[in-house]
């Protein structure tokens, strides 16, 4: 059983913070260079998936509960679409971020950060939800568990 391999467990624990940090770097670097919410979301989800692969899905569910995930998916979409609605209250067109800041440039900067945060949340939680639903299948089928042991 993979869970008993001490080398894997230690290495994964060392890697996890690095992966998450890299995900955040990609997230916040997205408006200057390559990257953005989608890539960062995938990287962050990969960290949790890696954790789940080694320590078991139930352990992963403890740090990222399924219920929370299902709520995060629409919250990300709402952050994105809500940003556009906020633009309306500034009298601008949908998703026009220019009025968010003191000048158009800083406004656009802030707007794209918020929107990318929405993308991050939805991509991250969708990736994990897919992983959980596939990984959860073997737990639901007792015969598969037998084979694993």
């Amino acid at each position, binding site marked *: 059983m993979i869970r008993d391999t001490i080398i894997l467990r230690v290495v994964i624990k060392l890697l996890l913070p690095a992966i998450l940090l890299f995900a955040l770097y990609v997230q916040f670097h997205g408006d200057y260079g390559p990257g953005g919410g989608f890539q960062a979301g995938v990287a962050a989800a990969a960290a949790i998936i890696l954790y789940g692969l080694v320590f078991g899905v139930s352990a992963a569910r403890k740090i990222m509960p399924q219920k929370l995930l299902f709520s995060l998916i*629409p*919250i990300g*979409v*709402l952050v994105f679409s809500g940003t556009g609605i906020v633009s*309306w209250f500034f009298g601008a*067109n949908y998703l*026009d971020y220019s009025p968010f800041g003191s000048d158009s440039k800083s406004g656009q900067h802030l707007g794209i950060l918020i929107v990318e945060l929405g993308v991050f949340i939805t991509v991250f939680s969708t990736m994990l939800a897919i992983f959980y639903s596939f990984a959860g299948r073997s737990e639901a089928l007792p015969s598969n568990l037998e084979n694993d042991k």
Partner: protein
Amino acid sequence: MSFMQEHLPALQVVLPLVAASLCALFRVGYLSWLITLSSSILSFLVAVFLLLRVLEQGIISYEIGGWSPPFGIEYRVDLINAFVLLIVSCVSAVIVPYTQKSISARFGSTEQSWFYCMYLLVLTGLLGVTITGDAFNIFVFLEISSLASYALIAMGRDRRGLTAAYQYLIMGTIGATFIVIGIGLLWAMTGTLNLYDLASRLPEIKSSRPVLAALAFLTVGVSLKLALFPLHLWLPNAYAYGPSVASAFLAGTATKVSIYLLLRFFFTIFGGATFFTETPLPEILKILALIAMFAASIVAIFQSNIKRMLAYSSVAQIGFIILGISYATETSLTGAMTHMFNHAIMKAGLFLLLGAIMFRLGSVKIEELSGIGRKMPLTMAGFVILGLSLIGAPGTAGFISKWYLGLGALEQGEWWILVLIVSASLLTMIYIGRVVEVAYFREPTDEVVQLKEAPLEMLWPAYLLIAAAIYFGFDTSFSADLARQAAVLLVNAVY
């Protein structure tokens, strides 16, 4: 209101999108239904306002994110898509009051929310495809609506819904791939994705090979989505085994939006009827449309599942619409667009009534329906009226659109097409007649005897559509006249 009036085009799409997210967030069945209901009705009102504004002041252009076209994404409403927006949002607004009864009887609270979330995402996608003026945006919205509709169909009562959804997924994805290849080729040749910018650049290079290849890819891709014979194979199973509400909604809207796309690509982008008639497309489309009208109607006659029968009938009716497009004249396009409108009303209504039968009887097999006309008189009476409209009996909406289609053929001196339209309509009479015969002239079976009339919540939305089917058979000032104005814009490639 004046504040929002400016932003109506964005609101049309944002409204169902935000509502879908809220359904997924709260995951409480009844609340989700309320959210769906209110956002559907509001979407319908937005579509009405948009149409009124277009009639009043002409084309509305909206710059998403404040980026001016052709660089940014433009939402652009003219008479053509205002008409389609109205069809889609109207069908949706009528169906939602009906859904609560049938969906809450089958699913738990959470699943209901997922259902409404998917429903609203389909609506978002369809409205988005229709309203956007950006070719790539079309693809994105098309995928939003398609992916959500696969999930909707998989939620059917019948487990065959799963394979049907999978089949639809594969076919739909191939269609989407073709569309994106076509759009990619157009982009490579012109360097623009804005539909109206494309329209101004394409005439110079329209006979170059990549552009023609793009046209071919777009035609096949969109034809897959709209289920034109012989690319219709996904449709019968999807409509037959999906939930009735989903069948009604998709039959009324999804294929109509694809037909709108076909019109946009053929006429607006490629420079009107003159270019279209230079290509071999009219002949190909005409032949396929005629085969669809006959083959699908004949197959429909031999179906034992009535939902499947109506699904095949949809393929046949799409044949009628494509026949109208193939002539590319003002009259024939009027017929095609009117039939789009009328068919959306009739088919959605018929599927809603079948859903009511399914709700009470648990089956829509034709042999199990004997004598049901005595036990569910209102439901079956509605079925007969909509059936007559589908056949094209005078005094119903179906007659008007077939009249224009026939007139379009006559204008071209092809009287034999008129004969074919009438004989295809006679085939419609046979399959509708089969249901009527079983429902009214046979002794009720033991199961049918115990039935009650369908609940009122399910009847009145269907009757709204029935009333519309009769009303638009007499007063064509809305349906056919608007369709004619839109047809003029299409034929002359005004944008």
